[in-house]
């Protein structure tokens, strides 16, 4: 599969990961090799087989009642990078 710099940059943008030009060049070269090797999944995964599901029969439901504990909240709030009271402060997403 042909991977070019534009595609790597597009993936980085969608992933919210800024890359240096050196990283873009390196990943461009590597991704073609990885996708070429990995294309062999078509040999197993192209038929009418069902998709794999991890749950496989579990999916037991919990009682519809308030969760026990909940003491973790303070510890989680304490880890916010910037906060006002118990609220997380994030930069504006639009002007």
């Amino acid at each position: 599969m042909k991977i070019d710099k534009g595609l790597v940059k597009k993936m980085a943008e969608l992933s919210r990961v800024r890359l240096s030009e050196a990283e873009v060049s390196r990943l461009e070269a590597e991704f073609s090799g990885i996708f070429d090797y990995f294309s062999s999944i078509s040999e197993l995964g192209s038929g009418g087989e069902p998709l794999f599901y991890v749950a496989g029969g579990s999916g037991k439901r919990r009682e519809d009642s308030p969760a026990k504990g909940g003491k973790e909240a303070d510890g989680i709030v304490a880890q916010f990078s910037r906060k006002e009271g118990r609220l997380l402060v994030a930069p504006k997403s639009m002007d």
Partner: protein
Amino acid sequence: MDTHTQRISGLLEKIRMENEKVGAFIEIYGEEALAKANALDAKATSGKKPGRLAGKIIAIKNNIAYRGKRLTCGSKMLANYLAPYDAAVVERVEAEDGIIIGSTNLDEFACGSDTTSSAIMRTRNPLDLDCVPGGSSGGSAASVAAGFADMALGSDTGGSIRCPAAFCGVVGMKPTYGLVSRYGLADMAMSLDQIGPLAKCVADVKLILSVIGGSDERDQTTASSPKSVDLGFEGKPSIAVAREFLEGADERIAGCFHSLVGKLKDDGYVISEISIPELRHAIPIYYLTVFAEFSSAMQKYDGLRYGKMDRELDSLVEGVSELRGDKFGLEVKRRILLGTFITTKEYQDAWYGKTLKARAVLKNAMESALSKHGLLLGPTMGVLPWKIGEKMTNPLEMYLTDMLTVPANLAGIPAGSVPFGKAGRFRPGMQVLGSRFSDAKVLALMEEIERLDR
């Protein structure tokens, strides 16, 4: 006999002297371990019944939460993040009087097979300090091999317990998917991750697995797990060797394996040779699954919620992208990008959809071989530990080293590694695989292999 306090004090001194050389621990919980040892000594004096892990010293991989301590996952992204609660396995270990002595190094977010992608420190193989300890639970395996801990907990997404166990000459077990609660484990790929133990001997692996296993309502995957884990011996099982397990294996490892097969046959075991051709596709299926799940798991790390950062973000998209670009290492970025790509609307059928189908085919092939033959046996790793830095330039080369360990995660089955024989300074690991929830049977054969190695 030494008191618990004396033993911990001695061990903390040993770690202080030697950890710098090995680099097993990211953080040592000296105060907490001493307090626990004191409490255990007091308990012994008062005649109270000790817990099942009383006096056992346990190291935990630093992607497992221990309240109030740094949970770095080997990443700069979480360098200042303190775990807000204890993982389920930590609660269970402590409830049975295990002494947790510190957190161990790992590949960044468990992405790697030799612990070199950790942004925190470098871990070396105690058997040969120039070589890697394997990974991603490299610090856990090294802590046991170096004698810093009796047991360690790691996580295994595609071999991250078994690979370092095999490289460092210790025992390691990836339990059945759903046997051990992952509450408090920082996830890497949720359909594959499993917490499990490493130790010097199979008996200790059995012991700690009997403590940490069993259902937990905070992890839905454990819903079908037995209430308590029966780890009794289940008789002499039949065994099959898939010839794909030996394709391309280092001849010193293959030599140890053939000698093991010979000894087992002499001991009365029936061993048949079979073929599971689907195994040749395990690496693509595994990595494509990981890329998709990993890129999703990493979305939450935005620099806002998981500890103080070295800067204030002034814009959401650009600021977060720049921060993630700076804080994540190259292997993490590589996997995030590949996962984003194969799950885009344009490419998801061609890649992720096919991966899910292929995974079902491989899982069925493994299950059918196991239902027919009982247990599968092969080497854990096809290669011996490499020199530090040797495989850091070509990611595909690193991925291919996981060939023998990933099938167990794809199928959700138990698999353990136990050393057998010698290859220079190393003791190659032999891998036993069983059907779902046949962990007891897998451990029973591992114990037999351990006996035959004496």
